[in-house]
């Protein structure tokens, strides 16, 4: 598949220039949950060899960690890797140095979202924001609304697939059109609002 091309592209980018390095980035990463251990990595490659999604990434998790050491902020945050990671935790389970790589990837997504960095998987930042918005409204996820919000309306092929998928679920009675509802409305709103605000700082 197209994965081969992605890898080829990654291999072409082997020259690191001073402009690619951000001296403050490593410190920023080390403040994130999971990031505190990032310098313990010995580049053994177990994460890269264990990752089931690496074929769809432009850099392996091992390469990402090394780039964090070097401060290659832009390269890391504009990589597809951080968005393709499905948090399956195979890498972290096997890491001999105990790095929580999926949590690091989540932290990197968080920085990319906050700094509005265009994502290789375009829809991803919107997915995370829409998910949170819907949960804020109803207390739980409401699938039809999520599907509609993130369906790619500019790609006919995926739109068709999404429509077929949605119809399959509807026919089976597995999509509720009526949204869920949180009972303790005031308690819920205040917790969500305050946590969002505090966490965004």
């Amino acid at each position, binding site marked *: 598949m197209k994965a081969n091309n992605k890898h080829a592209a990654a291999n072409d980018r082997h020259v690191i220039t001073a402009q690619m390095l951000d001296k403050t980035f490593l410190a920023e990463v080390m403040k994130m949950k999971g990031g505190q251990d990032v310098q313990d990595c010995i580049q053994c490659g177990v994460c890269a060899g264990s990752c089931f999604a690496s074929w769809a990434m432009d850099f392996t998790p091992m390469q990402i960690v090394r780039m964090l050491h070097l401060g290659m902020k832009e390269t890391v945050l504009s990589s597809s890797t951080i968005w*393709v990671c499905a948090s399956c935790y195979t890498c972290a389970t096997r890491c001999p140095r105990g790095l929580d790589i999926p949590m690091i990837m989540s932290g990197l997504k968080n920085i990319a979202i906050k700094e509005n960095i265009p994502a290789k998987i375009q829809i991803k930042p919107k997915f995370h924001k829409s*998910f949170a918005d819907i949960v804020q409204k109803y*207390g739980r996820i409401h699938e039809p609304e999520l599907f509609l919000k993130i369906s790619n309306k500019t790609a006919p092929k995926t739109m068709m697939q999404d429509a077929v998928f949605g119809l*399959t679920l509807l026919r089976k009675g597995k*999509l509720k059109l009526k949204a869920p509802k*949180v009972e303790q409305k005031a308690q819920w709103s205040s917790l969500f609002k305050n946590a969002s605000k505090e966490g965004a700082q």
Partner: protein
Amino acid sequence: MKYAYFPGCSIHTTAREYGVSSQAVSKVLGIELVEIPDWNCCGAMDAVYAYNPLLSISLSARNLALAEKMKMDIVTLCSACFFTLSRANKLLHEDSELKGKVDKLLTESGLQYSGEVKVRHYLDVLLNDVGLENISKNVKVKLDGLKVAPYYGCMLIRPPNVVNFDDPEHPTSLDKIVEAIGGKNVDYMYKTRCCGASLGLTEADVMMGMTKDLLLEAKNSNADCIVVPCPLCHLNMDAKQKSIESTFDVKIGIPIVFFTQLMGVAFGISPKELALDKNCVSTDKLFKQLHA
């Protein structure tokens, strides 16, 4: 046996058959699942965490606080909820600064959580509270000859420092359940391999590539069906199976059943009570050979 039941969002929607069949099986085994009143989204692993880490932990914390009021441990069916709630619980225990922040947020909303609740997966309850012997005792229909591929996926077993009741590399809990109800486990390679999870919504080609591999591996090991413990794995493997077949031009056609549905069949519970008609890949042929 009474537990604070945390269904998770998908149990009432895309994984209805899981919720329904678990209730039916629980009734037989004397397990009481008391739904946590007004529970909310667990924080959904990475979905909310990547958007706002503290918000994700706080969403989990509200559920933990609600369960603590009930003075019961949380039991959930969903592997992702199991992980998300367990992770929040662990972080709140280990990180006093985080605990302070979350406590303040909870207090402002009239809630409190002191940290007494344990988070468990339903499978853990079956194995360690109910016991395999009691499960075997209730078998009424022989599953003779049914070849089952147990699929564990990720969050039920990994990472072991967060969720810890089975081996992360060589898990056996589902195999034991299948054996206890008279099924035959097939050995296949990809039982702990990731299905692609929520990539199904945002990068469907990648998810389908990942799921296709494990479906074919199970199929080629001559399994009659795959049993799963997770709503999202089920959605990707069952509801998306047709799309996977057409995308990769392969024929798969393997039923994906929740382990609770298979238990229900062995217990002689009616197909309707197990919502067997809700599975997208038909289970008719699979279970017809049994009832015959």
